């Protein structure tokens, strides 16, 4: 049986992140949209919800924690994965306590993120 395609949103103000992650994540057959601007991403999310959101925590206009809160409020089943600039216990604890699915610290390999997304999609399909 063909698995339902997951909709994945990637938000990072570094445009290379989106550029590289899009082909990397599409390999599993999922639909990937990338955004550099958190506000635009949220607007898009309002139009049609995504199953998985991967967001950088530190961005110019709106930060990852805020995106996490807003998405959790709108669509509780969406799995949010936080990218942190560098791994600190405080940031990880905050993200997890606010309902993030998991976090990944920069720099990471595409495979590392795919692992997390795989776990997330398993939970979503369970």
């Amino acid at each position, binding site marked *: 049986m063909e698995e339902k395609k997951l909709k994945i949103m990637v938000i990072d103000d570094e445009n290379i992140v989106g550029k590289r992650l899009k082909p*990397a994540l599409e390999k599993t057959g999922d639909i990937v949209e990338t955004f550099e601007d958190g506000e635009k991403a949220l607007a898009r999310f309002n139009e049609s919800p995504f199953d998985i959101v991967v967001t950088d925590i530190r961005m110019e206009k709106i930060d990852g924690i805020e995106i996490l809160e807003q998405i959790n409020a709108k669509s509780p089943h969406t799995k949010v994965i936080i990218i942190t600039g*560098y791994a600190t216990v405080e940031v990880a604890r905050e993200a997890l306590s606010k309902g993030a699915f998991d976090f990944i610290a920069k720099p990471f390999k*595409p495979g590392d993120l795919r692992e997390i997304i795989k776990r997330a999609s398993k939970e979503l399909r369970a």
Partner: protein
Amino acid sequence: MKIIAYSGMNPKKERRSMKPNFFNKDKKTINDQEDPDNIPLRNRPQKSIRAKITISFSLFFIFCCAITSWSYWILTQLEHKIDFLEITDNYMVEIQQARRFEKNYLLYSTDLNDALEHIKKANTILKEHNRTIEAILGKEHFNKMIIYMAKYHDQLALLGDVENDQDREKLVPMLREYGSQMVSFAEEIVKKERSSVARMLLLAKRVPLYFIFVLLILVVFVVNSLVRQVILTLKRFMDYTKRIGEGDFSPIVPVRKYRDEFTKLAEAFNRMTKELNHRHEILLESHKLRAIGTLVAGVAHELNNPLNNTLLTASMLKEDFKEISEDEKLEMIDDLINETERSQRIVKDLLDFARESETLIKPLNIDEIVNDSVRLVANQVRLAKIKLDVEFEENLPRIHGDEQMLKQVFVNLILNAVDALSPGGNVRISVQRDKLPGYLLVTVQDDGPGIPEHIQSRIFEPFFTTKGQGKGTGLGLSVCRGIIRKLGGYIHLKGSSAAGTTFTVSLPITDSPSEMMSR
């Protein structure tokens, strides 16, 4: 404004000279004497306070001796005069007696020998004290006096020899003439002696008054000179301690032409400031390390972005190497190159700042210093979500200072502002000409909650901090002030209220001839 250019501290060399020298104390003394800061202090003729006090008191003693001897002499003279006055009185009495007997002889024909007897006595007195009387009356008068006396004596003798009244009448006018002359001379002596005694008494009475007057002048002079040398110098040294406390470690330069006991103190001060300066350098270095620690957190954070981009791109390049087109490969390789260069830039500023270097005072462009400082803290500023504006007046002259030290000050001021602000806050840096001629003014202004008024006066004190334990050492502003004072500038808290805090830094404009030409 005089700028003291520090040749810089070589920590290793300094440390070596700080080692206690147990083996050869003489060598250490020689080293002290060779201290270049102390040479101008030593190369002055000596005029010690001890010598001055000794000379002053010797002068007092000599003066007192002189006055005492003078007084003693006057009193001795007075004693002689009084004795002599008695003699002249006796002489007078003898003369008067002689004349009385002469009269009695003429009137009542009493014994003339009585008169002769008294004249003889008067003559003896005259001869005994001839020198003194001669000195008082003068040689001419004295001789006349002797002559009159002799003539009177002769006349008196003649008078005794003549028998008839006629001859006697002839002798009488001459006798009277000589007699009265003799009396008047005697009176003159007495009169002169009395007035002389009176004069001397007056002098003896005045001597203590003169003494007190001269003493007063001497005391005023000596006290004044000692006060100038001691009290004023002490005051000067108090000013030095204040100056040193403020972080100005320039050596003491000679103020007066002569050296004295205070010169040793000045040399000790110079040694102390040298040590303090050395310690200050260490403090500066440790404070810089702390600032670097703070900056590193931001840099690490910032560095992860290009690293992540590089890792993602390289991974994908490897993963999809066979599927993607040549153009895509080239684009990815370009990305790799760009991101690596970006990493390099991020690290370079911090490395420049962190590099250990000797103090080097030279003309600097203030805008470069401020912009470099702003770039250094850019990550912290971004992480704290704070807006930082920089504004420069046009055509600013160059300033005199040390690049790293100035960056340290500005980084510290900006980081302080960032610490005080909550997200969304603003920091504004402006650079303009100072109202004080020859200075540039850098203003660092934030719109944070401000520094409570009761601690505003303490913020430049070492180890004073409002930050929680482990967060701040309380050295930041004290180090900043140390640096700025050392560079010949001023740092002030211009104002702090609920609307924000403003720090100003005045820095001396470089005034080398070429600079003035180019202006």
